[in-house]
């Protein structure tokens, strides 16, 4: 989905040498282009009434607990958490840095975005069989610790009822791909956008690059 660009940071550095309006203009153009995607994504967030009441109930969250409780969902906060970023990110361990990105930064919104994409039935309950490696423990992260063995499935099913998981990976690419491009909000919006926003972003960068190369703002 992301487009690799050579020389983009250098372009940004070069833009810094020019009047600041050029850099601002680029950012503005990019945000404008991506606004359609983020707007669509914000529309996919359900209201509080559509969610499980326990998840939105304020008495069971970090307002009352001294530890970081399970994040609650709030539509307003989730909408405000969908942002466009034009700041280069920290390089990953593989050496990649992102220059333009759309993020779902609210905790509740991120849970709604990604719940069920690994296992549609939720986390399984721990069962030790003769095939279970001895290092696996009952209190491990990957296991359901609820008294309700179907808690995970019920939660995911309730979310699926309000929005479906969509794989935003482009068709025709080589390789197995990753499930991390699957989601209910931003990934769904990006997939439904059909690549138009992507092309527009690239065009915006090329536009400013041409301006620089012509030698003026």
């Amino acid at each position, binding site marked *: 989905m992301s487009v690799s660009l050579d020389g983009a940071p250098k372009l940004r550095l070069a833009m810094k040498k020019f009047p600041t309006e050029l850099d601002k203009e680029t950012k503005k153009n990019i945000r404008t282009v991506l606004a359609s995607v983020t707007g669509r994504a914000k529309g996919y967030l359900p209201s509080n009434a559509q969610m499980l009441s326990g998840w939105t109930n304020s008495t069971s969250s970090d307002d009352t607990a001294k530890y970081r409780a399970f994040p609650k969902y709030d539509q307003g906060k989730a909408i405000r958490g969908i942002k466009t970023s034009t700041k280069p990110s920290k390089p990953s361990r593989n050496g990649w840095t992102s220059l333009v990105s*759309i*993020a779902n930064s609210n905790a509740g919104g991120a849970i709604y975005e990604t719940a069920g994409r690994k296992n549609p039935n939720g986390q399984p309950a721990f069962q030790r069989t003769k095939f279970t490696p001895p290092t696996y423990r009952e209190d491990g992260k990957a296991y359901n610790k609820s008294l309700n063995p179907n808690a995970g499935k019920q939660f995911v099913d309730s979310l699926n009822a309000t929005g479906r998981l969509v794989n935003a990976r482009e068709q025709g690419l080589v390789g197995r791909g990753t499930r991390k491009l699957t989601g209910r909000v*931003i990934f769904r919006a990006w997939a439904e956008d059909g690549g138009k926003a992507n092309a527009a972003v690239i065009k915006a960068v090329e536009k400013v690059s041409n301006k620089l190369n012509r030698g003026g703002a």
Partner: protein
Amino acid sequence: MANVKINILTEFLGKGLKEADKSVKSFERSVKSVSYLFGGGYLGAKVLAFSKTAVKAFAADDKAAQVLTRTLNNLGLGFSNLNVQKFISDIEKETGVLDDKLRPAFQKLLTATGSVVESQKILRTALDLSAASGFDLNTVAADLSKAYVGQTKGLAKYTLGLSAAELKGMKFADIQEKINKLFGGQAAVVADTYSGKIDKLNVLFANFNEAVGKGLLESLDNLSGQQGGGLSWMERRLDALSSSLNRATDNFSRFGGAIGLAFRGEGAAALDLLNQPQGGKKPAYTGAIPSIQSELAIKVAEDYLKKLRDEYLASLKITKEKQKQLALDKAKASLAKAQANFDITKINLAAALKGKVTEEERLRLLALQAIENENGDLALSWIAKLDAARKKAAEDEASRQENLIASIQARMNVIMALQDRVNAKIAGNTISAQAATVSDVQSRMDTISALQARVDAKIAGNSVTVNVAGSVISQQELVGAVRDGLLNDSLSAKQANVNRQLGSFIS
């Protein structure tokens, strides 16, 4: 949750990643080399812990030095700053009293007297008084500085043998003279004791600590490019890996090397290593250190000091034990010598050696003697010589026998040659000079044969009449009579032949 995002424009910073990776590996190598110097048990965290101690120590020392310098400047004695610093350093090495205590004491005296020379003299007095009385140097210096201005109340506790009124009435110079008379040289005496040596060791380590801290901060300053801002720069860059870390490798290597030298007891070399100029520059660190925000542990420094102390104590213990062992060995040797005087076997061996013995026997006796003295190595050496002597004797014997055989063979050859000559003679293959002898023998043999024939003929026709006068009783008398008769015949030119057979006579 930062993972929930769509990356639209990305770039691969492979170059930066490689540089970062190289920096990390270089840094890891440096840390590993330092941890190796620490004995393998200390990793980068402990290096940092030691760094904190070093930096703090240098900070405190630098602050004290700056305060003293300011005092000197305020008194118009700034030109004596170097002299004072050197004086304090010398005193530190002499007495084992750290400059942390010397500087404040000196400062008190300086403010009271206003003279560097006077303060130096009084400081020496204060050191002697402190060593003798056991009171802290700062307390003593404070009392002396008060006494200098007329307040002698504090001197009562040192039991100088002077009453309060006498103290009040005396001049400070007289008081000082009295103290020097009573306690002069005490500081030097204490410095030579075991405790004083430990203190000197502490001084060495403290100076090393301060030098490490200074070196570390100078390294950071060089990295940051700003003097005095090294630490804050370090905090900003802690999250990023930059190529500057490659430059830091050299500094950390020297730093690690200096720590290693200190562990081996080469404190002076460690200090020299740290004081080496970096890249030709020798920046002077003069300002006060900015506040240190990052926390470093201090355990390593204390452990290091404890280790030095333990090693020193252990070395003393070993020396004592060695001395005990030497004394025991000496006593044992004396006892053995005394025992030897009454050992019959040894006496016999000694006596035997004094007698006339062959070389082989002498060696054997010496070997036995060494065995009796429980000197295995010496015994083995004598035995080896004995074996060599035996071997030589066997070789000589073999040689002698060979010579004998050769000699016999030579004689046999001579005899064989003679035999051949005799055989040759008998066979007639002789020299012409011998021929006459053979013919002479032959003629004689013919003569004998002719005579024999004549005798035979005579015997055949002759008879002998024996007239015996008287009677013949025995055969013996008869034989005697016949003999006499024959003898008379032969004398009268008559040939006679008597054959005796079976007791009868045939004539």
